[in-house]
C-alpha cells in the first residue's frame, strides 16, 4: 500500500509511551514496524507510584511481559480492592473489590438480592459474598484458579507499582522487542505541507521523522497541540481536586492487598503497599488547601515520608484524541484523578483501540472519527464513575465536599443514578469499562439503595432465605483464610521467579 505507516514516533518516557511502543511493535512484527520512543523522562506529572486495574494484565499479556518477573524486578504488590474510608462521614467505609458479589441466581445478578434485602430493611454487607473482599480484609492473597464456575476464579486482581521501577522495566522490555530509544527533550515539532506532522527534533539537534505520532508526554502535549484543532471539556466543576502529592514510604505494618483511600476535608489520602516499601499520596483541591499545608498533613499522617512528587492537573479531556497523523494518550488526552484507577486504564484502552484501528495510511481519517467516538464514550463513562464516588452517597460536610456537589451531575450520570434509585437497574453505555458489579460495589458501598427492584426479579428472589446462603459465606471465609498472607505470597513468588531465572 502506498503511504502505509512505516515509522511511528512516540514522544514521552511514561509507562503509557513504553506500553504503546511495545504493543505496536509486537502487533506489527510481521511487517517490522519501526517504532521510536523519544524518551524525555517520565514527565513532570509523574507520580511516585500508582495502583492499577485488572485490565493492565491484559496489556502486559499482549506485549509479552512475564508477570512474576515484572513483580520481582519492580517490587510490585497485588491489589484485590480499594478501601474507601470516611467518604460518607466519620467512621464510614466500604470496599470496591475486583471480583464478583455472590454468583448469579439464574439470569439475575446476585447484587439484586442484596438490594432487595436492603429495601426490606435487612441490609447486608456485600463483602461477605466476595472472596476478593474477604481475602483483602484478611490481608491474604492467592491468584484465581479453577474453572469459571468456581468460587476460586470469582475474582481478578491488579497491582500497586513504584513508578520509576515500572518505567525502567517497561523501557527494557520495549528495547528487547526492538523499540528504538532516543533520549532528550523535544525542542521542535515540524509539520509537512499537507498539515500532517512530519518530524520531531530533540535537544541534541537530531531530527526524527515519522509517518504517525503518539504524544504521551503529559498534559502539555507539545506534539499533539502542534496540530490539534479540537477543544477541551472541562470537568473541574464536578472534580475540583487539582493536585496530587505522592511519595515512597517505609513498608506498611499491615500490607493488605488493597489501596486505602481516606476522605479528608480537602480531598483524599491514599496508601498502598509495595514489596519492600509503600506508597502514600494526597489528592486535594488547591482552592481548599494550600500545597504546603497539604504536604504537612500528609507527613503527619504518614511517618517516614521520603521523596515526594507534586502533580498539578485540571480534570478534563480533549474532545478529539486523534487528529490527522497524531494521537494523544495518557494525560495528554485525559486528566482525571486516579480515584478509580481509571487514568492508566483509559490509556491502555486507547492503545488497544489504536491497534484495532491502526491507520492504513498517513491520510486516512475515518479511523480517527471512530477512535474519537469510542474513546470519548469511554472517557466520559470513567469520569462518571469517578464523580459517582463523590455524589452517590450521603454528603460529607465541609466546603470542599459542598464544592463537589455545587453543579448538577453530567446528564449521563444523572440518568444512571436516577434509574438505579427508582428500580435498581444499572444501565451501561456501549463503551463503558466498569461493569454492573463495579457500580454495585460503589453504590451499595455509598449506602445508596433503590426504592424498588424489577418486580419479576423480586418475586424470584423473595424465595431465597439467608440460611440458604450461609454455606456460600462460610466457604468464602474458609477459602480466604486458607490463602497465604499477602506479602508472604509476594516474597515466595519473587524467590521462585529468581530461581527460574538462574
Amino acid at each position, binding site marked *: *500500500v502506498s503511504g502505509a505507516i512505516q515509522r511511528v514516533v512516540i514522544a514521552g518516557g511514561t509507562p503509557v509511551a513504553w506500553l504503546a511502543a511495545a504493543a505496536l511493535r509486537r*502487533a*506489527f*512484527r*510481521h*511487517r517490522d514496524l519501526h517504532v521510536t520512543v523519544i524518551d524525555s523522562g517520565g514527565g513532570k506529572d509523574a507520580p511516585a507510584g500508582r495502583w492499577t486495574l485488572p485490565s493492565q494484565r491484559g496489556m502486559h499479556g499482549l506485549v509479552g511481559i512475564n508477570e512474576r518477573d515484572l513483580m520481582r524486578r519492580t517490587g510490585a504488590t497485588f491489589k484485590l480492592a480499594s478501601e474507601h474510608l470516611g467518604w460518607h462521614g466519620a467512621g464510614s467505609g466500604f470496599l470496591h473489590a475486583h471480583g464478583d458479589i455472590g454468583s448469579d441466581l439464574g439470569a439475575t445478578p446476585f447484587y439484586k438480592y442484596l438490594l432487595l434485602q436492603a429495601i426490606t430493611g435487612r441490609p447486608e454487607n456485600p463483602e461477605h459474598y466476595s472472596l476478593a473482599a474477604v481475602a483483602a480484609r484478611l490481608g491474604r492473597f492467592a491468584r484465581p484458579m479453577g474453572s469459571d464456575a468456581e468460587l476460586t476464579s470469582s475474582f481478578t486482581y491488579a497491582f500497586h507499582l513504584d513508578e520509576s521501577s515500572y518505567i525502567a522495566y517497561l523501557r527494557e522490555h520495549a528495547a528487547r522487542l526492538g523499540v528504538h530509544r532516543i533520549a532528550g527533550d523535544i525542542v521542535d515539532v515540524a509539520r509537512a505541507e499537507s498539515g500532517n506532522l512530519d518530524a520531531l527534533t530533540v535537544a541534541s539537534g537530531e531530527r526524527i521523522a515519522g509517518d504517525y505520532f503518539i504524544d504521551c508526554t503529559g498534559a502539555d502535549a507539545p506534539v499533539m497541540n502542534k496540530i490539534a484543532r479540537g477543544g477541551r471539556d472541562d470537568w473541574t466543576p464536578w472534580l475540583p481536586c487539582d493536585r496530587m502529592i505522592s511519595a515512597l514510604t517505609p513498608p506498611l505494618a499491615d500490607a493488605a492487598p488493597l489501596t486505602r483511600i481516606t476522605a479528608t476535608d480537602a480531598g483524599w489520602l491514599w496508601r498502598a503497599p509495595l514489596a519492600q516499601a509503600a506508597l502514600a499520596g494526597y489528592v486535594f483541591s488547591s482552592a481548599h488547601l494550600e500545597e504546603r499545608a497539604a504536604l504537612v498533613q500528609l507527613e503527619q499522617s504518614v511517618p517516614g515520608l521520603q521523596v515526594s512528587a507534586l502533580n498539578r492537573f485540571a480534570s478534563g479531556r480533549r474532545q478529539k484524541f486523534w487528529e490527522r497523523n497524531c494521537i494523544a494518550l495518557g494525560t495528554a488526552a485525559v486528566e482525571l484523578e486516579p480515584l478509580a484507577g481509571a487514568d492508566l486504564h483509559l490509556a491502555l484502552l486507547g492503545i488497544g483501540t489504536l*491497534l*484495532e*484501528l*491502526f491507520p*492504513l495510511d498517513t491520510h*486516512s481519517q*475515518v*479511523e480517527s*472519527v*471512530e477512535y474519537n*467516538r469510542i474513546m470519548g464514550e469511554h472517557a466520559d463513562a470513567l469520569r462518571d464513575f469517578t464523580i459517582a464516588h463523590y455524589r452517590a452517597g450521603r454528603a460529607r460536610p465541609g466546603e470542599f465536599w459542598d464544592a463537589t456537589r455545587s453543579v448538577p451531575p453530567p446528564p449521563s450520570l444523572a*440518568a444512571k443514578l*436516577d*434509574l438505579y434509585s*427508582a*428500580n*435498581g*437497574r444499572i*444501565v*451501561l*453505555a*456501549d*463503551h463503558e469499562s466498569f461493569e454492573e458489579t463495579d457500580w454495585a460495589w460503589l453504590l451499595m458501598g455509598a449506602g445508596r439503595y*433503590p*426504592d*424498588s*427492584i*424489577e*418486580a*419479576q426479579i*423480586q*418475586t424470584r428472589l423473595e424465595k431465597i432465605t439467608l440460611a440458604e446462603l450461609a454455606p456460600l459465606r462460610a466457604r468464602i471465609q474458609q477459602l480466604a483464610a486458607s490463602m497465604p498472607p499477602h506479602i508472604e505470597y509476594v516474597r515466595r513468588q519473587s524467590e521462585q521467579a529468581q530461581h527460574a531465572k538462574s
Partner: protein
Amino acid sequence: MAEPLKVVIVGGGTAGWMTAAALAAVFRADQCKVHLIESSEIGIVGVGEATLPHIRFFNRRIGIDEPDLMAKTQATFKLGIEFCDWARLGDSYIHPFGAYGSRIAGVPFHHYWLRERAANGAAPIEDYSLAIMAARLNRFALPSDDPTAVLATFGYAFQFDASLYAAYLRVFAETRGVQRTDAKIQDVLLRGEDGWIESVKLENGSTVAGDLFIDCSGFRGLLIEQALKTGYDEWTRWLPCDRAAAVPCENAGPLTPYTRATAREAGWQWRIPLQHRTGNGYVYSSQFISDDEATSKLMSRLPGKALADPRLLRFTAGRRRKTWNRNCVAIGLAGGFLEPLESTSIHLIQIAITQLTDYLSGESLRGHFDPRIVDAYNRWIEMEYDRVRDFLILHYHATERDDAPIWNYCRSMDVPDSLKHKMELFRHRARVVTYKDGLFLEPSWLAVYFGQRIMPTAYDPLADAVASADLTSRLRAVQERIQFAVMQMPTHEDFLERYCSAGKATTAQGRM
C-alpha cells in the same frame, strides 16, 4: 395490601396479546390487573409473520412450550432472510442468524476472508456460515449446546401465522386472569388537572378506567396520538415505502427455512412459507406505483394459487416522539412503523414489553410514573428504533440498480450521519461498527454489506500476522466442517414433521 395496578390495553392483535400475556406471566394478580379491549369488527394487521431469534427468549421468559406454539401457529423454522435482486438484478444473498467463521488471534474472521480472497481467491463468504449453507439446502436442526461445536454457530426464529400467535397468547393470557372485552372505543377521557388518561368510553356505553393505558391500536394510535397528540417523527425520506398489499397463497415447492425479500420496481415483495400456506406481500412506495398496479404485480408473481383477495395497508415509516407519554405506552404499530424487511416488527414489540415490565416496579406499580423512569424508557426505545432504521436504510441505499426511479432515488439519497460513518468505515477497512445494545450484531451487518456489494478496499492490517499457507488451510477447514455438519442435518420438512407438525396439534387449549 395496595390495590393492583390497573392496566388497560387497547387493541388485540400481536402487540396487544403479547403485552397482555407478558404482564400476566410476570406479575402476580395482587400487583397488576390487565383488561384488554379489542373489537372483533376491526381486523388485525398481523404483520411480522417472520420473526427474529430473540422471540425465543420472550417465549421462554413467559413460559411457552415451543413445539406446542409452533404446531398451533402453523410455524416453520427460520435461519435467515434471502434478499433477491437488491444490489443488482439476479443477485441473491442470505442474512443468516449466525456467524461467519470465528475470530483468529482476536481479529474477526471476515478480515482473513478478504485477505485470502485478494491473494488466492477464497470461496464465497456464504460458505463460511452454517446457517446459510443449511438454508440453501433446506435443512434444519436445533443448535448444539456445546459452544465449541460448529453446530452452535447459529440461531433460529420462526415463521408463523401472526393471527394464530395472537390467538395462542390470548388463551395463555385469559387463563392467567386477563379480562377481555369485545367492543369499539368511542372516546378517550383525559383528566383535567394533568391530561393523563382517566378512562376509555366504549360503544356499548360502559367506561373502563385504568392507571396505565397501553396503546396497541395500530397505526392510528388511538390513545398516544389521537388523544394525547404526542407527535411522530417521519422517516419517509429514507424509507419511502408507505403501502403494502398482502395475500396468502398455496404452498409450492419445499418449505424453505428462510424468508425471501425480493426487490421490485417500486419496493419489495415478501414470501414467508408456513406449514399450511405461504404469506406474500408487496411493500411499495405510492410515489412510484399505483395501488392497482402494485396489487396486480403482486398477484401475477405469487408462487402458488391465491387463497384470498389482497389486503391493502397504509403506513408512514417513523417513530412516535415518545412511546411512553403520561400514563400511556404505545406498543407495536402505535409506537412506530418500520417496514418488515428485516422482520423487526414483533421484535420491537418484544423490546418494548421487556423494558416496560422491568420498569414497572415500586412506585410505578402503584401508578406513579416517575418522569425519570419514563425518560429512560423512551431513550431506550428511541435507540432501538434508530438502530434498526439505519440498518434498513442500508438495504435501499447500497444498490447499483438504475432500472427504476425508486432505486435511483434511494441510491443517491442523503442518509443519516450515523449510517454514513458506518458505511465509510466498512468500505475503508472492513470494520463493522458494533454496539452493546441494539438489535443487529456484526454478522448481520456483514451479510448486508457484502450482499449489497459494498466491498471493502482493505482489511484490518492485524490480519496479516497469520502465515499465508496456514490461512489457506484454516479457511478450508472451516468450510469443510460446515459442509460436513450440514449434510448431517435433516431436511427442514422432516424436522418440522417430528418437532411440531400442525397436523399433530392438540386442541387449542390443549397443553396450556
